[in-house]
């Protein structure tokens, strides 16, 4: 079997459920040993060899280059297709975790499970999965060379305006909307996880905490989402929640893009609740019916209660967004998750049609310097409208009039 039956687009799952594995085994056997008409139920031994063969095929297709970075549970390498050195991928090698001796870590399973189903310009693409020696799981992901939104927010040398923020937020909300439309919660939206492709497109990455939602009677954990971006219902320990948690996170990202500092940055979960209360108003039965029944609800001293902030507050706090943008932000930051806008409603907001128009991807501000090199490398052969376009423009005499 020289060629794998899977196109490079669809993630071929070599670490798959036993059922698929059996099917593939029988299928391949029929193909390869078809003439001999072997027994219809393949032996375990043959099956194993076959999966190893399939896995090796996928693994052979990619070449690992240098290490790009290392996290707590994975190492990311830069890689490329063996037959096409100009097509770069990021290979995320999941570390073997001591806690999960018997199998894979939850994060890896979640990432594979949801990423293979989601295909959208604003969601990172999962090309392939294979296992290397010692049963290490490797995810072949889209290579996104231009860093993340956090880098842009923190870099004081980069200046951006309302139009750029609108473009970024549009891409972010689109990606999240697509996840929600397919009933996947991301549950870890923060600028750090919003990677930027070489064409400027913002992509939702790190689905290590993602899960499907809307199952009745099925509790979900409230210990998700980085604290600064965690919505009040999770801080109050809600076990049933909805896409509204991601919308809150997006609201926080929006505010951070506008202010260039995290908007409500608590040191502890309690501190986070008090900061949210100070900023947006104290959650109470009047503005959030049923909040007192949430498991970890802490009653506030009525003397220190802050009334729910109105439109004026957002207008004053976020003048860059303009009145309509402040409205959108306000609707994304509603304390009561039922009153919070959904990703779909956010995309229907009339802020998108207002002036200024969102910046086009190629004109978005970008981080210069070290990342630029990877940027150039990521250009595919014959891909004219990449970042290289700018370099060539200097030699364009036609433009110098």
């Amino acid at each position, binding site marked *: 079997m020289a060629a794998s039956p899977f196109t490079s687009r669809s993630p071929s799952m070599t670490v798959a459920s036993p059922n698929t594995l059996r099917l593939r085994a029988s299928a391949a056997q029929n193909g*390869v040993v078809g003439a001999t008409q072997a027994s219809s139920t393949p032996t375990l031994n043959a099956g194993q060899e076959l999966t190893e063969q399939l896995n090796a095929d996928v693994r052979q297709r990619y070449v690992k280059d240098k290490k790009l970075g290392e996290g707590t549970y994975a190492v990311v390498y830069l890689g490329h297709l063996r037959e096409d050195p100009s097509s770069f991928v990021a290979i995320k090698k999941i570390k073997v975790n001591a806690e999960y001796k018997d199998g894979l870590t939850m994060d890896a399973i979640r990432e594979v499970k949801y990423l293979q189903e989601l295909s959208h310009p604003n969601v990172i693409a999962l090309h392939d999965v294979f296992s290397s020696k010692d049963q290490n799981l490797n995810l072949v992901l889209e290579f996104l060379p231009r860093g993340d939104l956090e880098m842009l927010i923190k870099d004081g040398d980069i200046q951006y305006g309302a139009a750029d923020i609108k473009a970024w937020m549009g891409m972010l909300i*689109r990606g999240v*909307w697509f996840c929600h439309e397919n009933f996947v919660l991301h549950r870890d939206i923060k600028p750090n996880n919003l990677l930027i492709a070489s064409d400027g497109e913002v992509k939702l990455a790190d689905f290590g905490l993602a899960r499907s939602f809307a199952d009745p009677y099925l509790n979900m954990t409230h210990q998700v989402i980085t604290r600064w971006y965690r919505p009040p219902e999770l801080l109050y320990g809600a076990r049933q929640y909805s896409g509204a948690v991601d919308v809150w996170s997006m609201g926080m990202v929006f505010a951070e893009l506008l202010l260039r500092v995290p908007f409500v940055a608590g040191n502890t979960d309690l501190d986070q609740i008090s900061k949210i209360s100070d900023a947006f108003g104290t959650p109470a039965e009047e503005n959030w019916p049923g909040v007192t*029944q949430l498991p970890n609800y802490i009653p506030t001293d009525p003397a220190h209660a802050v009334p729910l902030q109105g439109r004026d507050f957002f207008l004053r706090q976020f003048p860059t967004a303009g009145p309509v943008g402040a409205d959108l932000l306000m609707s994304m930051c509603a304390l009561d998750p039922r009153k919070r806008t959904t990703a779909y409603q956010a995309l229907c907001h009339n802020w998108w*049609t207002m002036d200024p*128009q969102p910046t086009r991807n190629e004109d978005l501000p970008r981080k210069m310097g070290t990342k630029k090199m990877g940027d150039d490398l990521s250009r595919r052969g014959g891909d004219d409208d990449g970042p290289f376009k700018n370099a060539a423009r200097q030699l364009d005499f036609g433009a110098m009039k």
Partner: protein
Amino acid sequence: MASKDDLDHRDEDEVCPVCKSSRYLNPNMRFLINPECYHKMCESCVDRIFSSGPSNCPVAGCRKTLRKNKFRAQTFEDIGVEREVDIRRRVMHILNRREEEFDSKRAYDDFLEQREEMIANLVSRIDVAKTEAQLQKYASENMQSIRTNQALEEQEASSFQARMTQEQEEARLRRQLAREQLENERREIQASREDMLNRLAAGSSADAAAIAREGHKVLLKKSSARRSEEDRIRQKQAALRSEMKRGAGAGELAGPSDSGLIKGLRKIKTPEPEKPYDPFMGYVPEKRDYYTLQSSYPSTYLDRIRNDTRMAAGGYDLKEYYSRTMLEAFAGLGCFIGEEVSRRDAGAEVKPAATAGAAMAAGGE
């Protein structure tokens, strides 16, 4: 002027090829040419032959019919150059595409080359009929664009002229202002000095020093006031100037004209009507092919949730459950794996073994 003198001196014994009278006999003799045949003759010959209407060229062997109103003075001594310049002017007048109308520098260069080729053809009389026909056809097809480009050219020329005169005028005003200032200053200094002297003459000797000091101070104050006034005027002028410049810039930005079809690669007329921003980028939201979602479905299994305020407070919404259940129930309808597999195999050229395997896998499901 000097060149004309040169010409006159050199052509002391120049002779009109038609009437054979020479400059020696007629020092005021002027030669004229007609762009039909470029044969030169003296003014009196032109008057004599063509005053009564069009006639044939008097030069032997030339049968061109000439009219008097086309006769003009010669600009270049070499008649070949004169003719080429005429041809060039005419062709450039018609083929007046501008660089910004082309897709690339290359296309524009090709156009320039093509134009030069046509000019060269006409000058050296190669394929004249064909080239003329091409020109005529182009001119009639691209009337609109030719006219707009001409207008643009004129506008540019005139705006350049205007800018030049404006700059000159500004320089003149600046000089005048400086001169006036100098004059004023001088006069004021003199006036205050006289005033001081008068007062000194009138007052006692004790406050002489005080008066002198005061006079000096007044002078300083006046000059500083004048300076701020000048600054104000200068700023006003600068603002006015930049405004005018901006106006001129906007004028130049008139869009290029429509396309024609004879020459080279032409930029297809796409003014790019900036598409309105689509927040969904082409994705159809809430696309449901096989069902419509109800706002509520009766189910005893879910009744407990309907009344659970705690779940509601956390943001849990049964509608999402309905939506998801319905989506999953109908997901995959209208997807035909067999078709997709064959389409994929056609594209990817997978080996038959794999095809069979994939088909088996699909069928075994």
